[in-house]
């Protein structure tokens, strides 16, 4: 075993993820083991994760982990075989290649020859902000000190805190034996590395009557002001103690940005063209009996005209992985539904266009000039909502949903927060809430981490969202949980 491959296997502290050269070196070694003709693909993924979890003011988990995943794909005739491994020594690599070849021969899938596969149009992968040296530099000691600083204020006030700190970095590349050193095909994945950080914290009083939460995620640890989050969670906990029960009903609500993002998440699942065009979901207009098709609400105003939801992969605040087909898009433009996502199959068949539109994941939502304090000051009677949990869609056509308020709910009377209120169950559609807007505030990043996003190839969902004041929001029952 060479010294270099030994280093790759162990990923010592100075190289927690694989570099571009490392990935290419591994791919070349794999390609050399292939026997016979046929294309070989190598996907090399490496990741590092440092985390610290605490509960009842004491650390319950602290880890610093890293791993490599190598996926080898061999095409033999019309058969294709896949093998995964994390062993990078020569013997293991050769065994994996042989196993992939056996798999390709023994269980061939009827696969269209590569020359007959759909040609993808030329497109540049966007340049996105996904790497932060600050995140990558965080050591277990730094995390420990950060956690100590987060826990101490809560403990000093006799509160119990629980929270989670995570820093993550990774790299990914998918290389082909037929295009090493030449221009990659659209389905190849050029080398990319990224970081991700998150911090969230819940503070509760000893009696269990008050709860406060705060959290933020970003690719850049430097953008997360952890002490401010801790102070906010503590402040909310203190303010939410000894809540009173409030009659359910329709209230004016001030939704903090996190709550707004959770309402938008209900809409996100409906943003596909196929849904209305098969006669379902909130964006179906009506069936056109003459043309024999379902008309959608594309081009129609569906939300308050102050709402614009857009997505620009080059937005430095968003931090989205540079995927193919990614482009700047406006989903709602001044309340008008302007885009829905679709697959390339759909585009070829229905639009005669060789293109695709990726789903709505990360986004920026427009805001307004009003601060939350101003919203409170101008509210005669209403509720201030920190965030929601356990949201479920009850009716896909109207997006009527239900869920619970969580970690702080306050009654506002005559322009002031008068008391903490027991949590309530809401039964409301985000479409109704976003059409009953009184005021909007400054958009800010919210907590939207995706667990194992890169390992699972799941899209990141960063969002920049404003607080909103909305009328007649429906609450249907009280909840005892804090």
């Amino acid at each position, binding site marked *: 075993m060479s010294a270099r491959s030994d280093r790759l296997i162990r990923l010592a502290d100075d190289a927690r993820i694989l570099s571009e050269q490392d990935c290419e070196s591994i791919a070349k070694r794999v390609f050399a083991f292939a026997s016979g003709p046929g294309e070989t693909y190598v996907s090399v993924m490496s990741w590092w994760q440092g985390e610290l979890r605490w509960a009842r003011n004491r650390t319950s988990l602290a880890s610093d982990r890293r791993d490599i995943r190598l996926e080898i794909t061999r095409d033999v005739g019309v058969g294709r075989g896949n093998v995964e491994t994390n062993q990078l020594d020569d013997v293991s690599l050769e065994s994996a290649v042989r196993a992939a070849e056996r798999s390709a021969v023994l269980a061939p899938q009827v696969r269209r020859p590569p020359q007959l596969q759909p040609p993808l149009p030329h497109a540049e992968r966007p340049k996105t902000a996904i790497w932060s040296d600050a995140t990558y530099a965080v050591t277990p000691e730094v995390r420990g000190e950060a956690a100590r600083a987060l826990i101490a204020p809560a403990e000093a006030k006799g509160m119990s805190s629980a929270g989670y700190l995570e820093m993550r970095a990774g790299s990914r590349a998918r290389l082909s034996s037929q295009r090493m050193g030449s221009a990659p095909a659209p389905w190849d994945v050029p080398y990319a590395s990224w970081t991700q950080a998150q911090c969230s914290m819940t503070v509760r009083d000893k009696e269990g009557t008050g709860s406060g939460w705060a959290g933020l995620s970003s690719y850049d640890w430097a953008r997360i002001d952890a002490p401010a989050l801790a102070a906010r969670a503590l402040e909310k906990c203190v303010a939410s103690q000894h809540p009173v029960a409030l009659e359910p009903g329709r209230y004016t609500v001030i939704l903090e940005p996190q709550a707004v993002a959770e309402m938008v998440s209900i809409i996100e699942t409906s943003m596909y063209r196929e849904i209305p065009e098969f006669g379902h979901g909130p964006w179906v207009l009506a069936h056109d009996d003459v043309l024999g098709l379902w008309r959608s609400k*594309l081009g129609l105003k569906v939300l308050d005209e102050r709402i614009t939801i857009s997505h620009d992969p080059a937005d430095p605040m968003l931090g989205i992985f540079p995927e193919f087909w990614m482009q700047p898009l406006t989903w709602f433009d001044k309340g008008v539904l302007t885009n829905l996502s679709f697959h390339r199959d759909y585009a*070829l068949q229905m639009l*005669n266009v060789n293109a695709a539109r990726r789903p709505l994941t990360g986004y920026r939502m427009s805001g307004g000039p009003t601060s939350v304090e101003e919203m409170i000051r101008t509210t005669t009677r209403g509720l201030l909502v920190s965030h929601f949990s356990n949201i479920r869609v009850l009716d896909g056509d109207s997006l009527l949903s239900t869920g619970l308020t969580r970690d702080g709910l306050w009654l506002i009377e005559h322009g002031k927060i008068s008391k903490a209120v027991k949590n309530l169950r809401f039964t409301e559609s985000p479409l109704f809430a976003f059409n009953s807007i009184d005021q909007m505030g400054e958009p800010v990043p919210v907590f939207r981490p995706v667990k194992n996003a890169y390992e699972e190839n799941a899209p990141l969902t960063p969002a920049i969202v404003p607080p909103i004041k909305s009328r007649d929001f429906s609450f249907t029952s009280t909840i005892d949980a804090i």
Partner: protein
Amino acid sequence: MRQMKISLALLVPSAVLCTMSASAQTRFQWPDTSEHVAHYASMEECLAAAGRVTGSIMRRRELTEWHDTMPRDPREALEPQPEPVTQVSSKCAAQFAEAKVDVHDFAPAMKLFLAAGRDSDAATLLERRIAAAPPRSARERGAVVDSAVELYTNAKPSRLDAAEGLLMHRARTSTDRVERMKTYFSLLVASRNAGDTARTVRIARMLVGIADSLTVPERQSDEFERLFDGNGGQLMIYDALDELTGLKARMDSLRKSTAAYAALERGNWSIATGERPEALQIPIGQRAAPLSADFWFPSTAGSPPRPTRGRIALVLFLEHTDCIGMPSTDDAGPTTQCTMRMAELRRLAHRFPSVEIDIVMSTHGQFMYLPPTSPAEEATLIKQMVDSYQVPEAVLGVTSTPFWRLPDPDSRRVEKILPNVARYDFGKSWKVGSGSMFLVDPDGLIADAWRLGEDELGHFIEVLMQRQNKGN
């Protein structure tokens, strides 16, 4: 000494604990995966085992014979199931005595008994199940009988006698005549699918008999309109009348003239539906309009107009979604229906070389997984697709589909109705679709359309050829 006793006292339990711990461990052993179906504990496991054996036999068959393109053998349903399936079912079902089966498990148990050839046990179990239904619950008994009929007809071979017995009992005891008609029709379909022509005619006679006696309110009832998947009971009657008329009578009529055959079919339609004879939804006797195309293959095929007067012709309409497929890398390609239709056409073309074959298709602005192409390029690709089926002497006419787009941001392509489709719809509510085939006689009249399978088409073409030879 005392110290030693304490030490020993401590040692003994530790040794016991160690022994217990060691004896509690067992070495890993692979589970016995060999097939011992007699050990299976539930009927579902037995059915799954039988299903696996059936599946393996089918997969082996698919590797050696591609049946997708072969005409369906109507007697196939009456053939016994493969012997290995019977053996596995019998062996596995041996542990289940009929008397001990819970009546609520009757559906899987009956299926298993039928697969094992224990028909009398299946019948006894069904009797127990019907008896277990509350006396006033006609709905529950009906559901049980429906399930049993389905099990009998889907069993291999189909137990048509048993199914008929159940349905006839229901028909005799039911005062609802529309319901009885529905019962007869389900039996007619089962008999026809099993190739039991004598039974089919007998049931058709009973269906027509009860249809004749329906009162006007019964014919106008919602129940009657809901029959035949909401298309109305009149289509059931027409279907039954068609069975009673029989292929021989229809061919005799066509042998005389297409007009005579049209009159026969129109008469049946009028009797069945109460509509005017001309309202027959099948355009028999209508003059076949000349086909138009922007791209003919071969290029001279469009002149003189097709179908050519003086020749027997088959006009086949194929649709893009059916024969080209969706552009997905996984789903692209023709459907089985398209493949079968083209295989039928190839066999007919070999059998009747003098018959003209006209295939009608249209462009869609996209071909499988390829990016948008020009109409001429797409027509060439369609031609290559048609050629792959090797239908001798087939002529292909491709129309460039006129379309418009919904306003932005929708932008969907909306295709206009093609002239050929409009001409061959004849204003009927049954529209031309993919796989619609028209048999055109030498006088340019449509002899039959849509419904004919390969065997019937063969008979009809022979009749037309005889007529042509006699100079009729």
